[in-house]
């Protein structure tokens, strides 16, 4: 396997010429600012250069290229496999309720004996990520790792896209299946947020829309905590992700991140479900732990990988982390890269939700994490 990295910035154009490696065993991943949906010339150029390759990707809240974090750019990785198979699947998600069905459809398109892993890039606003993952896993089985993320839109939460054969499209989910015994598919995911404040009861929620905690409007609670920074909602709500867990001893918490707020309904929309009757607790950033988290994710992902092979690393980190880390966001990308095998090409994006197997092996939607996927070919 060989990997080529390149990027595009409006001021300077493509960083390098497209490598002449088009073919069915070539995977082209591209992540970029959401406004490339309008000025889609570079995306067309890219697709034109790889007509028979698998080309996919999505909009982002920050592009990751190597150890750098950029805005308003396109980050691209071109991986050329020698003896492994690739397949691209797509599904539409009109409303969040369709998420599970869309996942099931994707899974059905990809499922096979030798399927070694699935990369998923989904619309970031109209999808219930946890339901999407449930659908895919239901179709491909628990033993196939599923990783990826929900597309981002900076800190705007207005429009996201997934790249398809017809160009950037909203309400779409793309999934790439990697096949064959030579594929090595690693993954790791870490948060690095601290729980704080009292534990609260989710007293009113529908799907991924939260209305009340402890019988009081959840939005009011967030505004209280944000103070002046409430003006920056919904983005600033990312400063306080919500850890939720079932109301039973020893239950593993899941982190949920805010996608939007509805002033009229006093509700907040999260990237995944908030079951009524679960417990919820606010979280806050701890800078050092965020960076350590990224390193730990790399540790997990390289486990089982060979250091002597070329590695494609797909980094999906949460927009919430970017918001907190700000200028220090690159530190986590550096930390991740440092933890990966030497010949690693890292590409990725800041997302509205990360997908990867949980510590217990079950695939989940994560929020507020750095999620790394490493792909090698023997």
């Amino acid at each position: 396997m060989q990997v080529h990295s390149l990027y595009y910035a409006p001021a300077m154009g493509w960083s390098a010429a497209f490598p002449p490696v088009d073919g069915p065993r070539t995977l082209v991943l591209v992540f970029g600012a959401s406004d490339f949906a309008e000025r889609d010339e570079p995306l067309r150029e890219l697709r034109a250069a790889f007509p028979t390759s698998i080309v996919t990707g999505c909009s982002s809240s920050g592009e990751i290229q190597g150890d750098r974090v950029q805005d308003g750019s396109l980050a691209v990785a071109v991986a050329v496999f020698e003896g492994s198979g690739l397949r691209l699947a797509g599904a539409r998600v009109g409303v969040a309720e369709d998420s599970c069905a869309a996942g099931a459809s994707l899974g059905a398109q990809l499922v096979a004996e030798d399927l070694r892993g699935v990369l998923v890039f989904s619309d970031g606003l109209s999808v219930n990520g946890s339901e999407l993952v449930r659908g895919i896993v239901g179709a491909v089985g628990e033993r196939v790792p599923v990783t990826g993320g929900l597309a981002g839109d900076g800190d705007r939460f207005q429009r996201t896209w997934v790249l398809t054969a017809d160009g950037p499209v909203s309400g779409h989910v793309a999934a790439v299946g990697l096949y064959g015994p030579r594929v090595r598919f690693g993954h790791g995911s870490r948060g690095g947020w601290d729980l704080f404040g009292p534990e609260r009861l989710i007293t009113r929620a529908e799907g991924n829309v939260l209305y009340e905690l402890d019988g009081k409007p959840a939005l009011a609670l967030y505004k209280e905590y944000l103070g002046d920074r409430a003006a920056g909602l919904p983005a600033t709500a990312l400063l306080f992700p919500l850890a939720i867990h079932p109301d039973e001893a020893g239950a593993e918490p899941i982190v949920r991140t805010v996608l939007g707020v509805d002033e009229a309904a006093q509700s907040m929309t999260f990237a995944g479900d908030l079951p009524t009757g679960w417990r919820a607790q606010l979280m806050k950033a701890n800078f050092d732990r965020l960076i350590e988290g990224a390193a730990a994710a790399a540790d997990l992902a390289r486990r089982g990988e060979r250091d002597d092979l070329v590695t494609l690393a797909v980094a999906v980190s949460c927009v919430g982390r970017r918001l907190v880390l700000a200028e220090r966001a690159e530190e986590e990308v550096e930390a991740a890269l440092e933890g990966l095998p030497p010949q690693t090409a890292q590409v990725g994006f800041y997302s509205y939700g990360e997908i990867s197997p949980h510590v217990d092996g079950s695939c989940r939607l994560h929020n507020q994490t750095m999620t790394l996927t490493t792909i090698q070919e023997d």
Partner: protein
Amino acid sequence: MEGELDSLHPLLARQLRRTDAAVDRPPDLAGWQELLRRVSRSYRAAEDDRYTLERAMEVSSGELHDLNRALLAERDKLHAVVSDGLCLIDSEGVVQSVNREAARLLGVRAAAMVGSRLLGRVRVEVETSGSSRSANPAIEAMLAAGEAWTEERAVLVHASGFRIPVSLALNPVQVGQTVVGSMVALRDRSQQRDAERRLLHANEELQRARDHAWSANEAKSRFLATMSHEIRTPMHGVLGTLALLLESSLDSQQFELAATASRSAERLLAILNDVLDFSKIEAGKLSLEELEFELRPEVEASVALYSESKQVGVDLCCFVADDVPDFVVGDSLRLRQVLTNLVGNAVKFTSQGQIVVRVERVPAAGRVRFSVEDSGAGMSETVQQSIFEAFTQADGSTTRRYGGTGLGLAICRDLTALMGGELRVHSQEGVGTTFWFDLELAAGAQNAASFDSLEGLRVLVVDDIAVNRQILDDYLRAWNCTVVGAAGATEAEAALARSVFDVALIDFMMPEVNGVELARRIRADARSKSMALVMLSSANTDREAARRVGITTLLSKPISQRALHDALRTVTGLAGTVERVTPQSADVRFTGRVLLVEDNQVNQRVAAAILQKLGLEVDIAADGADGVMQSARVDYDLILMDCHMPNLDGFEATRRIRSRESHSGGRVPVVAMTASAMVEDRRRCLEAGMDDHLPKPATKAAIAEVIGRWLRREDGGE
């Protein structure tokens, strides 16, 4: 500063790298400006972060503070409601919190206790037989090991030497897997002792109260038994005397009066029984008889009972519809009890108009409806709702004006319900009241002696009360008579002018021209001279005046169907003379010698007279002991034994007789005479060795029947 430059903040180091600069190599202008942008963003971000963290800390501190206060309040509440002393100590034995009771037991203020070592303040001793020793070292060891411990007989010894006996429990407190301290629970045993003493005292009080209640209850039972005995005894005298009077030669009016007196006495006795039964009804212990009885006489007797007591000017009528079965199966005594009660009420509250008792079939339901309608004072809705409750009367003044126990309607309601009906009331103030109930009464196997047809008899009915005319009309038409009704003298004379009648039934009490005056006028008229006259009389009828105008036959109101029939047959010559009712039992005679054991002299006389009339030789014993003695001397054919007697009662006397017989041989029949018809009493009689049972007051017929079971009849019949 050299050192500082050697180890730049990693962020600044990266910012330099990104702008293509280093500590020893400044960037170009574009790089410089980029660097400034990045540094400024960092400052701003740091500021935002600081704000966010401070804000979060402030808000969450507030929240936690509130939560903490709520928790403390909750804990205080818990501590307050827990009567035991609670003291939380950490693993070092230092007090974390104490509740008020614990502070009291430890003899210090709660605030002073917190933060100090528990065992430094107080010595714990364990009471063993004789000596007490300090348990402090042992407790220290257990606290350190996080062990649980309970000691029921501990003593807290204060620094002052003051001792409080307590029970003490140590319970390790865990957070997760770690023991962080112990909860010490203290219960004051001196208080416990107080409580025990109080409990003991309360128990004694309860015992006394219970004993008192028992004896009160027993007194009540004794009172009821005595009352029943004391009232029944003279009542038996009255009844027996009346029975003898009825045996003597009486004319029809005397007979009817004596019979009414006898019936009234029986009713009184029945009412007495009912009062006694009320407790049984209340206790749900009353069971009903299922016997065949003749319905008409029962109903008519219940109504006739009040012919004397009703107020002048009130007409008391009774109508039993023709299609109601003659004999029905049920409890006649209870039915009569309900009816007499209802009629009695109506009589009490009606000062003019009429009281009509009707018994009719309810065709649809196949039931028989009993109704008692009066034109009395009536009741308001409110009163109607409460009248069926025991001890309730229409208003407080009722008792004063009319007397009564207030039990009547409650008994009626309960009895009706027991019989399968529901007693209901409809009333309107100033208009009147109707009580009614429907019963499912199975028709009996027997039929009453049928009425002879009076076909063709032409009868003129003169009564100002329409209901009365209607009732008579119904009865007479059932016997195929031709009936013409007249509401008064004028109408009667007009009818007589038009037609010829065989009989005229004339009500005595009519406005304007009364019955006697009308009879006089009729007798004076040649056309109707041969017509028979029957006067419908009330208590206030001037019988002498009636006789003077040639009326020999008077029918007491309310008119019984049978009496009406018989009177018509007599006056029209269809029967011989006026029949005198004499019990058939008068003709039965027995042979034998009987011992009557009875303490009451009146009862002795009555019973002896009846027994002699039955042809028996009678000896009298004045009490149980006398009876035992006499029965040892003479071989009696039968002993009649009163149950309740002073000195030796009937039960014991019988037991002694039986005991003697077990040696001497033989067995004389002993028949108990007892006032109560309760099952328990019968059982008691049999247990004492008696053979039969004769309820008091014993009528001649009843005595003849029982004797007939044990002795030969004179004519040789059994």
